[in-house]
C-alpha cells in the first residue's frame, strides 16, 4: 500500500519549496548567521564564532535547557491525561450536549496565554477573585512548576482533544468492530486497533503541544520567574530586551531550542514511519456511536469540570477585571460598570483599528499557511521527490523558534539596504512573521490527514483520466479539508492575537489586538486591556464557528 509514484509531484513540490523558502528559510538563515557572525546587524561578517562558544558554554544554559524540557514534557503528559480520555469518549460514544462541550473546549485556543495566565493570577493570588468569593487563595500552587504546567495545559490540551476525537472518529469503530468479530475483548480491540490507528493524529498533536510549551513565553515569565524557574525562552527574551542587547546570544539559544524541537519531531516521525495508518479507503462507513449508559453522569461531570477550568475560570476572570471600575475596588456591585467596554467600542487608543488589522491579518495568515501547509504535506507524504525530508523539516522548524527570534530574523533579513523592495515596516512583515510562526499548525494537521488517505483513491482518479492537479483538487483536497480547515481556523485565532513577534516587528504606526492589550497593561489600564481581550476572544470564537456552520450547510464538511 505504499505506492508513491503517482501524482503531480513537480508543481506541488515547487510551490511548497518556494513558499517555505520565503516564509521559513529566510528568517531562519538570518538567525543562524546572527549566531555565527555577531556583527551581522551592522552588515559585517567580522569575528565569526566569537560569541557562539561563550554563549553555549554558559553554565546556566544546562539549567535553562533542562527546565525547558521538563516543562514541555510535563505539559505534554498533563495534556494527554486530560485530552485522550475525553477525546476518545467524544469520538466513540454519544455524549450528551456534545456540541456545547466542543465549543467550550474550543475557547481556550482563543484565549491568549498571557491573558489566561493573568486571569489565573488575578483569581488565585491573595485577595484575588477566589479569595473575594470563597475566602481562600491558592497562590503557593500557582507560582510553581505545578501551577505553570496546569495553566499551560488548560491552554493547550484542546489541540490534543480535537485531534484525538477527530482521528478516532475517522478510524471509526469499524476496524475495532472487525477485531471484535474475531473475538477480541473491547479493551483489547481498543488498545490493539483503535489507539494504534489513531497514532498519527495523537502524535502530531502531542508534538504541537510540546513545541508550544517549550516556545511559550508569557506563562513562564509571569509564573516561573518568581519561582526561580528560568527556561530558554525567558533567557532569550532577556538577552533581546535587557541592556546591553545580545542578539547573537539570543540567536544561539534559539538554535538550542530548535534542536530540542527537532529531536521531538524525529521521535514522532520514527513512531509514524514504522507502519501504515491508512484508514480512509473509499469504502462507505457508518459513523455509529454507542450510548454511554450508566457512565453518562460521570462523563458529563468530567466534561463540565474540565470546561469550567479551561474556559470558565479564565473567561470569568477576564470579564470580572473588564467590568470592575477599579481593581482595588474588587468584586462589589457599586464597583461594576461597562466603561471599559464603552471605551473599546468608542475606539479609545485605536482599539477598533487594532481589531480590524488583526482580524485581516488572521484571515490572510490562515489562507497562506493553508495553501503552503497542504502542498508541503502532499509533497512529503504522497510523492517520492528528493528533498521531501527537507520540506518536512522546514515545516516543523518554526515550531521551535520563539516569536521574538523570528522577529529579529525577519528584521535582519528584510532590512538589508541592498534590497530593492522590502516588506519591512509594512504590514506585510507581520504577515510573514505570523505565517512563519504558524505554518507548522496547518502542515502538521495536513500531514496527519494525508497519512490516513489510501493511495488507491488518487490512483483511481488518475486511471479514470484525471490530471494530477485535478486529482489533488477533486479527491485529496476534499478528504483532508476537514483537518485542514480546523487547522486554518486555529491559525486564524492564533495569528489574530500574536504578541511576542508583533512587539518587535510591527510597522511604525500600526496596532494589533495584542499590542493594544499589552500597551494598556504597561500603562496600568488592566481593565481596558481585559475588555479588549474579552471582545477579541468572543469575536475569534464566533467567526470560525459561523464559518464552520456555513461550510456544513454547503455540505463541504460533515457535521
Amino acid at each position, binding site marked *: 500500500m505504499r505506492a508513491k509514484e503517482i501524482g503531480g509531484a513537480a508543481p506541488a513540490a515547487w510551490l511548497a519549496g518556494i513558499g517555505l523558502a520565503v516564509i521559513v528559510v529566510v528568517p531562519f538563515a538570518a538567525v543562524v548567521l546572527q549566531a555565527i557572525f555577531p556583527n551581522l*546587524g*551592522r*552588515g559585517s561578517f567580522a569575528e565569526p564564532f566569537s560569541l557562539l562558544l561563550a554563549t553555549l558554554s554558559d553554565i546556566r544554559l544546562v539549567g535553562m535547557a533542562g527546565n525547558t524540557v521538563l516543562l514541555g514534557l510535563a505539559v505534554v503528559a498533563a495534556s494527554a491525561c486530560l485530552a485522550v480520555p475525553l477525546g476518545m469518549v467524544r469520538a466513540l460514544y454519544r455524549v450528551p450536549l456534545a456540541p456545547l462541550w466542543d465549543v467550550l473546549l474550543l475557547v481556550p485556543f482563543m484565549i491568549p496565554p498571557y491573558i489566561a495566565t*493573568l486571569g489565573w*493570577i*488575578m483569581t488565585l*493570588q*491573595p*485577595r*484575588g477573585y477566589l479569595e473575594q468569593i470563597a475566602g481562600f487563595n491558592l*497562590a503557593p500552587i500557582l507560582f510553581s512548576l505545578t501551577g505553570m504546567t496546569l495553566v499551560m495545559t488548560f491552554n493547550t490540551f484542546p489541540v490534543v482533544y480535537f485531534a484525538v476525537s477527530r482521528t478516532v472518529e475517522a478510524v471509526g469503530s469499524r476496524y475495532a468492530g472487525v477485531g471484535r468479530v474475531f473475538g477480541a475483548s473491547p479493551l483489547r480491540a481498543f488498545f490493539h486497533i483503535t489507539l494504534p490507528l489513531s497514532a498519527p493524529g495523537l502524535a502530531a498533536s502531542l508534538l504541537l503541544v510540546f513545541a508550544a510549551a517549550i516556545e511559550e513565553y508569557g506563562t513562564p*515569565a*509571569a509564573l516561573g*520567574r*518568581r*519561582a*526561580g524557574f528560568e527556561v530558554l525562552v525567558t533567557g532569550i527574551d*532577556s538577552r*533581546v*530586551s*535587557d*541592556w546591553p*542587547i545580545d*542578539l547573537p546570544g539570543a540567536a544561539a539559544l534559539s538554535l538550542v531550542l530548535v534542536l530540542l524541537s527537532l529531536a521531538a519531531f524525529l521521535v514522532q516521525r520514527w513512531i509514524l514511519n514504522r507502519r501504515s495508518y491508512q484508514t480512509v479507503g473509499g469504502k462507505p462507513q457508518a459513523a455509529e456511536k454507542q450510548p454511554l449508559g450508566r457512565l453518562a453522569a460521570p462523563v458529563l461531570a468530567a466534561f463540565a469540570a474540565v470546561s469550567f477550568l479551561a474556559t470558565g475560570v479564565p473567561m470569568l476572570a477576564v470579564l470580572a477585571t473588564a467590568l470592575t*471600575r*477599579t*481593581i*482595588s*475596588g*474588587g468584586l462589589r456591585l457599586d464597583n461594576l460598570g461597562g466603561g471599559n467596554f464603552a471605551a473599546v467600542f468608542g475606539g479609545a*487608543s*485605536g482599539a477598533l483599528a487594532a481589531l480590524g*488589522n488583526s482580524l*485581516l491579518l488572521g484571515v490572510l495568515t490562515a489562507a497562506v499557511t493553508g495553501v503552503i501547509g497542504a502542498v508541503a504535506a502532499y509533497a512529503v507524504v504522497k510523492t517520492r521527490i528528493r528533498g521531501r525530508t527537507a520540506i518536512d523539516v522546514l515545516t516543523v522548524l518554526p515550531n521551535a523558534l520563539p516569536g*521574538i527570534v523570528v522577529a*529579529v530574523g525577519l*528584521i535582519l533579513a528584510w*532590512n*538589508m*539596504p541592498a534590497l530593492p523592495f522590502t516588506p519591512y*515596516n*509594512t*504590514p*506585510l512583515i507581520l*504577515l510573514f512573521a505570523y505565517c512563519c510562526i504558524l505554518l507548522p499548525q496547518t502542515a502538521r494537521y495536513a500531514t496527519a490527514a494525508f497519512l490516513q488517505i489510501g493511495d488507491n483513491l488518487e490512483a483511481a482518479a488518475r486511471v479514470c483520466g484525471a490530471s494530477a492537479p485535478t486529482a489533488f483538487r477533486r479527491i485529496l483536497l476534499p478528504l483532508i479539508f476537514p483537518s485542514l480547515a480546523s487547522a486554518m481556523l486555529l491559525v486564524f485565532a492564533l495569528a489574530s492575537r500574536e504578541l511576542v513577534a508583533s*512587539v*518587535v*516587528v*510591527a*510597522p*511604525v*504606526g*500600526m496596532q494589533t489586538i495584542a499590542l493594544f492589550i499589552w*500597551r494598556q*497593561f*504597561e*500603562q*496600568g*489600564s*488592566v481593565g481596558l486591556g481585559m475588555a479588549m481581550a474579552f471582545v477579541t476572544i468572543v469575536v475569534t470564537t464566533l467567526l470560525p464557528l459561523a464559518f464552520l456552520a456555513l461550510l456544513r450547510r454547503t455540505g463541504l464538511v460533515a457535521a
Partner: protein
Amino acid sequence: MLKSLKSVAFGALATILGAGVAHADITVYTAGPQSLIDKLAEGFTAESGIKVNVFQATTGKIMARIEAEAANPVVDVLISASWDTATDFAKRGWLVPYSSPNAEKVPAFLKNDTTVAQGVSALGIAWNTNSGTPKPAEWADLAKPEYKGLVNLPDPAQSGSAFELDAALGAADDYKLFKDLKANDAAIAGANAEALNPVLQGAKAAVFGAVDYITFGSKAKGESIDMIFPASGTVVAPRPAMILNWSKNQDEAKKFVDYMLSDAGQKLVADTFLMPARTDVPAARPLISDLELMDYDTAAIYGKRKEILDEIAKIFAAN
C-alpha cells in the same frame, strides 16, 4: 472575468495592507506612554503639517529593534525611558547635536549637546491604602514585619530606573536593606506594570521603587493607591529625547523636539503625570524640587551593571 476579479482583489488587498503605513515625514520610537506620543504627534502634525509615524514599546524592545535594524536604520527621533541610552548612543557617535530654543527653561542636568529630557519620572513607594498595613514612609519600612510577604520590587534587569535605585541603595549599606527585604519575603516581579498590578488587587501591599506616573494615573482612575517619596532620597529617571545621525529628516526631527518642549507639548507631558522637563510648566504632582534626590555616580554604577544585577539576583534567588 476571473482575471479582472483577481486584480480587483489584489488591488483591494494592497490598499488595505498599505493603509497602515502612512508615508510619514518622521519616525519616532518611544518608550513613553502610547497616549502621550499619540497626542504629541497629533498636536505636532496640526501645527507643522509634518506627519509622525510612531513605534511604541519598552526601552528594551526598542533597543532590540534598533540593534537589528542597524544596517539600515529608519528611526529619526528616539525617546527612551533610560538616560543611559543617551549616554551610550552619544558614545557611539549616533546622535545629532541640537539645542532647542525651547530648552532654555530645562535645567542643565536634564540636557546636553545631543540630548534633552522630554519629561522626568521618579521612583517611590506605591502603597495600597486598603491593604491594612501602616502607611510606609521610608524604604527601610518595607523590611518591617508588617509588610512580610507583601512587597514587590520591579526587576532591575528589566527597568533602568529600578536598577539605579537598587544600585544607589545597595551601595549605601552594602545591600543590607535588600537582604532584609528578602528575609521579609519581598519578591522581584517583572517590569514596572507587573509589579504594580498585584498591589492594586491587594495581593501585595506595596511596590518598592514604583514608577510614579503610572501610579498617579491609577490613583486618578480611582484606585486606592498612593505614592510615597521617602525623605531619605530617591532617584529620578529623565526620559531622554535624541535625534539620530542617520536621519534623513533632521530638520523635521528638530521641529518635533521643539514642539515636544513647547508650552503645548510640555502640558501634554504634565497631563500624563510625568514631571515636565521645563521648570516653568506647572504639573498637578510633586516636582523635582519637592523631592529629595540620592547622590550617586551614574557612570560608576552603569560601569558595574552586571556585578550589581548579579548581586541582587543572588540575594533574591529562590531558596
